[in-house]
């Protein structure tokens, strides 16, 4: 059972061409911008200098971008690479990319698309970018399930499998997208909310850091 002693020390929510960091709107694109252009513009705004970004599928780009924003403000360097876990979830797994790959099979199958036909690849891309080597898991659920991800992450923190965990939701399907990541740490951080289902729901709803 969870002892509940973990804290949420950062968040990033991306939806409807807007990027929020710790509850504050950090950047927004022109309304109606299509997902590929939105992701490229967000990359140019927040990062750049990482050409591999352009080779990723949309799901990985979205998760990568959300992690980029999240970790620019989080003190992730205080944790050992092997102690940073990642637990993500979504509704459509990698179906958006699966369909794109399937379309190439009629001609010549695309190796570059094939490697993204698993949803957990987004976790790998985040790990490569930041050098994380901790535990990770990707769940597929009907909708945003605050308790599922929280309970798994809390288990990792409680059992000393990790000292910090990047958690959340990364969903892409047919041009629709939504990411809600948050950083949970076992150590107490002054002013940080407790890692509870209620607080995770508030982050997803955009009502809290």
């Amino acid at each position, binding site marked *: 059972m969870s002892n509940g002693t973990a804290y949420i020390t950062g968040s990033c929510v991306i939806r409807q061409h807007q990027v929020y960091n710790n509850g504050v709107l950090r950047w927004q694109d022109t309304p109606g911008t299509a997902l590929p252009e939105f992701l490229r513009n967000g990359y140019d705004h927040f990062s750049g200098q990482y*050409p591999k970004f*352009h*080779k990723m599928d949309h799901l990985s780009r979205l998760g990568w971008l959300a992690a980029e924003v999240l970790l620019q403000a989080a003190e992730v360097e205080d944790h050992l690479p092997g102690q940073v876990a990642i637990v993500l979830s979504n509704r459509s797994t990698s179906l958006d990319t699966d369909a794109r790959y399937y379309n190439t099979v009629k001609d*010549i199958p695309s*190796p*570059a698309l094939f490697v993204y036909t698993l949803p957990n690849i987004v976790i790998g891309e985040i790990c490569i970018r930041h050098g994380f080597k901790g535990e990770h898991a990707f769940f597929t659920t009907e909708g945003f399930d605050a308790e599922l991800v929280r309970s798994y992450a809390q288990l990792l923190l409680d059992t000393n499998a990790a000292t910090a965990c990047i958690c959340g939701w990364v969903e892409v399907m047919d041009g629709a997208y939504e990411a809600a990541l948050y950083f949970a740490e076992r150590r107490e951080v002054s002013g940080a909310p407790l890692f509870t289902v209620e607080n995770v729901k508030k982050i997803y709803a955009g009502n809290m850091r």
Partner: protein
Amino acid sequence: MADLKSQIIAQLNLQEVKPEDIGNDQPLFKEGLGLDSIDALELIVLLQQHYNIRIANPEQGPEIFHSVRSMAEYITAHQKQQG
């Protein structure tokens, strides 16, 4: 070779690279352009899609894909064979 460079950039989605950034003899992998194993597969697809060339012997890969020049020479030689 300019066309081939443009095809490589498009095939590999190298959005931050321009044709003039790629030297004719610059290694495509590792310390050169920094391509990886998935890129190598995409280069094989490029040859098949644009030039109808199928590489029968995978061991030829490192030689063919060493640089843009080696790719161009392989394509030219293959086209001459086809007559």
